[in-house]
């Protein structure tokens, strides 16, 4: 059983006015029951013991209904009962910062975005957000866990419009207010005002920029685009529920079938990817998942070889593993927990970005995801970014608008021959990972340094 309460605040400033300033409170509880190997889940936002008992009764009734259809039955991997409380660390409580001060910062930054755009930016935005989730977990196995997770962040965006053309530039990474498990100090560290003019300028410049040429090129993806690349082509296909087909009805399955475990060549030997729920300030960081299993660090891909999945107590048992690696999370009180990414990170290599560019003869450097699509087994993908720069004979050249690239996941990662070093490594939050029915939006994290991939098909459909 989980009681979950969330408070949130979102502020968006657009073209000199406040487009939206919203405070929200959402609370309720959900009860998951396993009866004779079949699941039932019921939830309610109505408080009181009477409602709790009615909802528990409903969950049992639903589990009995689930058992009407024969088939697979759940067996759960063991977990040690625990009593604990954990809070994600932050320095400055974002809910204590005055709204007027937040608005002043955002209005100031947004004006500079417009100034930078020189009249070509039709829509300039600055936004900030904060969320605090408090959840209490109790199980009939004897656990009682409380966790409080505080997230915060801010961002800028500029939309420049020309004849038949619309170009977007954002800072620091796409249209998202929340960037990690921090307090308001995360917003202060962004220096929104200092970056605003450049965002407006580049949006305007993109209107006149060249199209990305079509054909095979070496590409260097900055950390913001690596977030998406890792998320879609490694994070999702290593979710064991997808492999077992239980997401087939919605998001799809995975090419990483269990016969590949431990031996499949996922990528080059430069590629080591971990699922790490323990890294500080990650949006996929927690002490316990929503089955009461401790958050962990699991190597998914080791020097190119596929080594493990993200698992639940049920799927770990099915795979023959002794314990879950703790990745079951629910989107609030009214959803069943499902396997979710934690922080899926590409381990750093030993290149600087300058070295990588100097070492590239004919390529494209791409920043910040703008468009994404991947097939239902996570093989064929096509991703587009806000901006790119030509790399010619070891130097950055012309700006490209709307560059995109496509590939097949293991072929693409096999072409990875350079990963940036620790100094270039950065952890980003992804607060919009969709999965499950009814739909659930997870907050997950991805860390990476800039990374190079050889002979990738770019400029699709140009």
């Amino acid at each position, binding site marked *: 059983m989980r009681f979950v309460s969330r408070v949130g605040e*979102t502020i*968006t400033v657009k073209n*000199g*006015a*406040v487009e*939206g*300033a*919203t*405070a*929200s*409170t*959402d609370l309720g509880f959900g009860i998951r029951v396993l009866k004779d190997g*079949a*699941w*039932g889940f*019921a*939830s*309610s*936002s*109505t*408080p009181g013991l009477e409602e709790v008992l009615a*909802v528990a009764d409903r*969950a049992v*009734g*639903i589990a009995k*209904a*689930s*058992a*009407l*259809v024969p*088939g*697979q039955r759940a067996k759960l991997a063991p977990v040690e009962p625990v009593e604990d409380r954990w809070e994600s660390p932050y320095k400055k409580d974002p809910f204590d910062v005055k709204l007027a001060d937040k*608005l002043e910062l955002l*209005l100031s930054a947004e004006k500079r975005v417009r100034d930078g755009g020189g009249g070509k930016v*039709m829509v300039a935005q600055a936004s900030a957000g904060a969320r605090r989730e408090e959840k209490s977990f109790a199980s009939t196995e004897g656990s009682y866990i409380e966790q409080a997770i505080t997230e915060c962040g801010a961002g800028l965006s500029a*939309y420049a*419009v020309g004849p038949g053309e*619309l170009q977007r530039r954002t800072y620091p990474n796409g249209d998202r207010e929340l960037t990690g498990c921090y307090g308001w100090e995360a917003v202060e560290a962004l220096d929104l005002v200092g970056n605003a003019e450049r965002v407006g300028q580049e949006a305007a410049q993109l209107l006149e920029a060249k199209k990305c040429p079509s054909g095979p090129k070496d590409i260097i993806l900055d950390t913001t685009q690596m977030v998406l690349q890792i998320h879609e082509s490694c994070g999702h296909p290593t979710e064991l529920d997808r492999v077992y*087909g*239980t*997401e*087939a*009805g919605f998001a*799809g399955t995975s090419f990483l079938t269990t016969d590949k475990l431990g031996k499949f060549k996922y990528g080059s030997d430069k590629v080591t990817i971990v699922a790490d729920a323990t890294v500080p300030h990650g949006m996929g960081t927690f002490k316990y998942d929503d089955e009461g299993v401790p958050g962990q660090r699991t190597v998914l891909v080791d020097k190119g070889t596929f080594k493990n999945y993200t698992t639940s107590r049920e799927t770990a048992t099915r795979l023959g593993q002794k314990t879950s690696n703790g990745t079951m999370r629910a989107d609030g009180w*009214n959803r069943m927990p499902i396997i979710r990414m934690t922080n899926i990170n590409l381990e750093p290599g030993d290149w600087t970005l300058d070295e990588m560019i100097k070492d590239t003869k004919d390529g494209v450097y791409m920043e910040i995801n703008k*468009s*994404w*699509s*991947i*097939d*239902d*087994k996570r*093989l*064929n993908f096509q991703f587009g970014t806000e901006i790119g720069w030509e790399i010619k004979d070891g130097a950055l050249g012309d700006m490209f608008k709307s560059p995109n690239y*496509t590939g097949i996941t293991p072929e693409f990662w096999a072409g990875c021959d350079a990963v940036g070093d620790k100094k270039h490594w950065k952890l980003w939050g992804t607060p919009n990972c969709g999965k499950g*029915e*009814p*739909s659930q939006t997870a907050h997950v994290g991805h860390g990476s340094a800039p990374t190079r991939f050889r002979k990738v098909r770019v400029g*699709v*459909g140009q």
Partner: protein
Amino acid sequence: MTAKERIQEVLEKCLRFASADQTEVVVTGQDTYLTRYATNYIHQNTAQTDTQVCVRSVFGKKIGLAATNALDDASLKRTVEHAERIAKVQPDLLDFLSLPSKDDAGEITAQAVFSDRTAASTAEERARAVGRITALSVKNGFDAAGAFSTAVMRFGIANSLGIRRYTEATRANLTAIVMGPTGSGFAEGLQSDVGKMAVDRVAETAVGKCRDAQNPVAVEPGDYEVILEPAAVADMLQFLAYMGLGALALQEGRSFMSGRIGQKVTGENFTLWDDGTDPAGMAIPFDFEGVRRQKVMLIEKGVAKSVVYDSYTAGREPGKKSTGHALPPAAQIGALPLNLFMKPGDAEVEDLIKATKRGILVTRFHYTNPLHPVLTTITGMTRDGTFLVENGKVSSPVKNMRFTNGILDAFDAIEAIGKRPALVDMFGLGVCSAPAVKLKEFSFTGGTEH
């Protein structure tokens, strides 16, 4: 106390607590149930009861929003006060005129679609329906996955300018993806009345498609004639709506309609309108500001006619009135058409196949996303039944393909339109009525291994 009385009580309490110049309260309640199945068994089965309250407070031209799902008096009062506090510290939103008044909102005669059978449906009934699908799948040696959901949705809207609205609606949604060793099939049903759900037809269609989809061959990417079944067409229509059929996108120059109203934007045989009162869809007769939903012709015979408005975007253009397409207050993306109807043609899908010399038949798309909103370029994959058509006949299943194509370019290439539109869920709030189409040309830019 009934759910209606409870919601009306919440609306009135919030208005009583308010001290702003204008106040709007939107209450949405849901009882939703969803039975999820995969590999021929039920693996998730859920119930949710929730009521959310959103308060919009206006002081002059300053607006604040606050939301809660705690319905006790103290929480409601705190939420109203929070919205007012947020409003007071803001600069003026200069082009905001007013919340809609009772006169602006119009008289409502249409009814929301509601079914007692859906409201009373049980987990056992959903499980037995799922069991019919999984049994047919097992019989054919396949794996079935999908979801069967039912929902009762309640909408209560009140504002300090006299608007009082309440309605209830129901919907039931069934999806089936049936997978064999080398291919899969798909079918779905959407009804207000769960008793009208054609469970066996959904099962047979998905299983039949799966059977036909086994042992696919690879086809080279390139431009092909294409037949898109309704689910694929609905996907494109939804992106068209999202990218450009709302007033805010038009006003900000982000829409393909910007500067092109009255001009030809796509093929002459393409006509699209929005009608949230048509009982053939999932009618809910008013929007989230309580304004009567109007039928709006969006594109007629290929000519851009209009976009949809809420009160704010209407106030930014002289003489415009809201068309009754406001989204929930916190959405921040302006008005959107949520009840799309594409004009059907007179062909059966078989006729479209017969008219194809060498082309691709697509059951549906997967993971579609925009590349260029003004050009309406999108990319995505085919999924759950893609077939090669040669000399008027389906000759072989093919491996899934990636497409990259403009939506308006696609509809400019319509050669024939199906006569039997299907209803497809739209953002969980609305529906899209889409027929099958035959296109002269459609661009596939890649392939995959399955």
